[in-house]
């Protein structure tokens, strides 16, 4: 079990906490130490918007071993309303044929995977169609 490693990411995975560059406004998710746009090292904490749209997507039919019981599942790049993009599964899709680029989604709290032989639940965000 990767306890420390998992807990380090909790503010992002559970609460969408990000950093905003105080000089140029670049939004870093996860937070960074240095802004890739203007090299500033000062960020203020913000919380991302949980609504956005699908930029692109795929349906994974062959997954890594730890996701093999979940297949097929949809995953996409989501652009949130504050323009920040992230990768998330698109949950609850009954008919994959109806998935489209541009569809509105909302991020929700979900179980993402199980860890190790004990199967400890690991959580985070997934998108659902709005």
């Amino acid at each position: 079990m990767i306890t420390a490693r998992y807990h380090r990411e909790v503010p992002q995975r559970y609460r969408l906490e990000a950093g905003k560059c105080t000089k140029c406004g670049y939004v870093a998710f996860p937070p960074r130490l240095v802004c890739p746009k203007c090299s500033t090292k000062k960020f203020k904490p913000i919380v991302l918007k949980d609504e956005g749209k699908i930029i692109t997507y795929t349906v994974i039919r062959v997954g890594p071993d730890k996701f093999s019981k979940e297949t097929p599942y949809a995953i996409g790049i989501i652009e949130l309303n504050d323009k920040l993009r992230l990768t998330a599964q698109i949950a609850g899709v009954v008919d994959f044929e109806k998935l489209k680029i541009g569809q509105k989604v909302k991020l929700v709290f979900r179980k993402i995977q199980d860890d190790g032989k004990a199967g400890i639940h690991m959580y985070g965000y997934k998108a659902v169609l709005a």
Partner: protein
Amino acid sequence: MRDVVVIGAGMTKFGELWGKSIKDIFVEAALKAIEDAGVKQIDSMYVGAMSSGLFVGQEHLGAVMADYLGVTPIPATHVESACASGGVSFRQAYLEVASGASDIVLAGGVEKMTDGADVTEALATAADQEYEVYQGVTFPGLYAMIAHAHMKEFGTTRKQLAAVAVKNHRNGAKNPNAQFRSEITIDQVLNATMVSDPFGLLDCSPVSDGAAAVIVTTMEMAKKLKKKPIKVIASAQASDTIALHSRPSITTIGSVVNAAKKAYKMAGLKPSDIDLCEVHDCFTIAEIVVSEDLGFFKKGEGGKAAEKGLTAIGGKIPINTSGGLKSKGHPVGATGIAQIIELYEQLNGKAGDRQVKGARIGMAQNMGGSGASCVIHILEGGK
């Protein structure tokens, strides 16, 4: 900086080499390259490999291979840049000779992928582990998302993607070292088992074992050894964000654009000067996007170009005459070196049935992850 030339090459057949270990295949390729170059000793060596730790539980490959090749105590370095490990290994050897630090250097690459590891999980370590892989993304998945975006933006079709696989199998069928030496049809590609929409199995490069090595040296040494030199006229490398979602465009690979810009400038050439190009077709869409980002076709026209046969041998710009990753195979760390070997054979006029007539300038484009690393070389044959 001194002029650097390639004077020898060797590779194993790519495929499921169950009877041979990672050491066996690397040493086989390296010995062939040393013999081909006709050199008695090498000053230094590089071993490109993406993830021998996960695939076979062996790291420290520089020393492992120097030991089994019987060349200790020379410096031996393992180079890792995901799927670009081979190309970056070649670049390190190039820089070491160009700088004057060494005269004869072996640049190699190897991967042993069929020894039982979870290959999908091992390959996924080239993406952002906490913010892409954690969510369940795979490498076919990342490139599939590029494909869907390209289809939406430019009207690229699955049939155009399939044309890439069909062409690469046609070329690979003529390559004795290729993993798959069989031709396939558009219908076979379209009807294959789905892996990650819009990719079927035949849109994806295979899981492979293999090794490749070349010998680089100075122009003076090549003359002394009476070898026909294939000159390295550009070596360029660029990086980009590790996560696909962090890039301003999903349909342009920034590291390819940036490395290409540097490479063309260094060689004093433009896209139309290139006689043939080996590109990193890990998935069919990759060849299409890269053929645009290298400047061979306008943005969005790569799919149509593949469908019209402009990238076939005899076309406007022959791409992946070796069969590419799709048909030749993709033992990750060996791929970048195998691309250089295809150029070496083509520019020496020794590519047999797949020879591009009069080929003089060849380009190799090797990338890692979903394009976070790209390394490009341009080679020139004798006039």
